[in-house]
């Protein structure tokens, strides 16, 4: 049942119908993620950011192409340890995100969660997750809630190639199918789970090949191509909303940084990242596509770049200046009532 995009036919949402404003939004999202991650990379290197940090640079087209179809109210996503991109694409505010990574009271989670646990339920973002495979079962629940409420909402679980081998993920695929849930599973295959290659850890040729065993469509897209992700995701989400049940999308690409900040990456081929950055990059490709086709101008895009750069600069400055949590914060927020 695994399909490549071309076989999807006329049902697919039409990326060429995106308006100028929508295209600018898409670009702003991808650029924001990239700028956010590049800056966190720098700040981490100076020792100012505590804890474990996993960067999403290179994978922007996935979060952006999927979340472009989602509402903040009725649609929920569950993310991974590599969650900044999903947060930004789902509309979580960037300044509190940055403050959270620095462990400040102004953070999305008041400094209690950090990079691995940024969440914003009010935006339908059910959290980054420190547990590989933690998210997919949760999404069966948010999809079930949407189905029972009948609000047309969809649940989307992002997970990595490594996570695709976790039992929790596979259970969620089966459960979503058995319960016929409005759920969408996005396998972000960036080639590695930590230092282990996905070609080794996934016993099928493609993660999407597992979809058939769970009675759902499985589609593979080029994750460097925003429009490909956008169309494939749109199709799956539309189907889910209309009661057509869950699907699995495998998005293939490469991550630009190490598994986590500090990773020397000697397990990778020498030119892997350089090649991707130079020849495949999703932002370059998007930019080239929309300018060559005359849908957007370089000036418009440059203006977005400048706005994003300024926002990130402010986010970092404000995050650094913000207060750290104090003794009384230690004991709050455990229970609603105890």
């Amino acid at each position, binding site marked *: 049942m695994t399909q490549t995009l071309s076989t999807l036919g006329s049902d697919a949402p039409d990326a060429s119908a995106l308006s100028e404003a929508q295209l600018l939004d898409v670009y702003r999202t991808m650029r924001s993620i990239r700028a956010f991650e590049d800056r966190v990379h720098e700040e981490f290197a100076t020792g100012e950011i505590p804890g474990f940090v996993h960067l999403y640079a290179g994978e922007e087209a996935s979060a952006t192409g999927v979340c472009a179809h989602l509402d903040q109210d009725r649609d929920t996503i569950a993310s991974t340890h590599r969650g900044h991109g999903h947060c930004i694409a789902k509309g979580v505010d960037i300044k509190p995100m940055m403050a959270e990574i620095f462990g400040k009271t102004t953070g999305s*989670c008041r400094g209690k969660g950090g990079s691995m646990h940024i969440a914003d339920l009010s935006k339908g973002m059910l959290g980054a997750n420190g547990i590989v495979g933690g998210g997919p079962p949760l999404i069966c629940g948010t999809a079930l809630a949407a189905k029972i409420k009948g609000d047309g909402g969809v649940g989307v679980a992002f997970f990595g190639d490594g996570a695709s081998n976790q039992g929790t993920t596979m259970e969620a695929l089966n459960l979503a199918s058995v319960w016929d849930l409005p759920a969408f599973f996005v396998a972000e295959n960036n080639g590695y789970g930590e230092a282990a290659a996905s070609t080794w850890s996934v016993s099928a040729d493609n993660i999407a090949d597992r979809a058939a065993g769970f009675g759902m469509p499985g589609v593979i897209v080029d994750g460097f191509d925003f429009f490909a992700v956008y169309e494939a995701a749109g199709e799956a989400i539309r189907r889910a909303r209309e009661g057509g049940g869950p699907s699995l999308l495998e998005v293939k690409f490469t991550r630009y940084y190490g598994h986590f900040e500090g990773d020397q990456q000697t397990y990778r081929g020498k030119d892997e990242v350089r090649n991707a950055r130079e020849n495949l990059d999703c932002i370059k490709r998007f930019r080239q596509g929309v300018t060559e086709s005359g849908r957007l101008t370089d000036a418009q895009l440059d203006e977005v770049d400048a706005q994003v750069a300024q926002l990130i600069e402010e986010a970092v400055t404000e995050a650094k200046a913000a207060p750290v949590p104090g003794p009384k914060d230690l004991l*709050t927020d455990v229970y609603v009532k105890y």
Partner: protein
Amino acid sequence: MATRKISYREAINEALTQEMERDSSVIIMGEDVAGGAGGQGEDDAWGGVLGVTKGLYGKFPGRVLDTPITESGYIGAAVGAATRGLRPVAELMFIDFAGVCLDQIMNQAAKFRYMFGGKAVTPVTIRAMYGGGLRAAAQHSQALYPLFTHLPGLKVVVPSSPYEVKGLLAQSIRDDDPVIFFEHKAMYDVTGEVPQESYTIPFGEANVVREGDDVTVVAIGRMVSVAEEAAKELEGSGISIEIIDPRTLSPLDLDTILESVENTGRLVVVDEASPRCNIATDISAQVVSEAFGDLKAPVKMVSPPHVPVPFAGSLEDLYIPSAQDIVNAVKTVTEWSK
């Protein structure tokens, strides 16, 4: 409130029914809780493995969901659904099966609120059978509530009678925090006076089951009735024990225990869980820390030995704390002198 005699099983069923009637966001899920899906025979054939949810499927269409055997999947789904406005009651058939789904309880449900800076509410109830006595052997007889009591973010409820189980279950479902609800598998046929109307029993308020002057006996779950047997046997020796049922282990009503110990000066804690790091050690340590000056004798713990639960009836009967074990402990502390 007018009462009538019903079983522990019926009391649970009644609490579920009444909560589902008063709040349409309450749903139920678990293996065969809706009777077993997809077969050629009767609907609602089972009501969970021991018939507790029988009849609910017909009364609440679409809100009583069978699941495949996929504890990580559906416990996770219950948790996810709880973050999106439902109040799921998930049946984890035997608490022993927590081994295959602990992450969704320990790292997801329990921690969301804190990790997310107080911005999540996860009103999920997980009902599970615990305890020995049915010759169910090592993998189906554990108590395990100490594991959950250890984990911040969870509430742990262990009802000791039909009256208690109804009121505490209603409270669990209405409660805004994740609750692990322990039903003793050997108590489903125990009967007692239970009001027809809906009522709740608040968390963190211990019940003084029997007043007495010489020794405070704290007993958990089914051990409450065993302590009552012991109380009767002790009447002959002129020793009067005060029996306290904590009802909820997290939160724990230490004050009621301390007040009693202030009066009796002696404490015995009876716990069906394995002896290391269990509730008996926990309560003993807390009482000693807070009320050492009140104690006239060592605190004694009545728990099974540090071995798995054996199958053979001859062994299981020795394994489970008995009224005689309690009598012996009470005598040890009353007869104790330096």
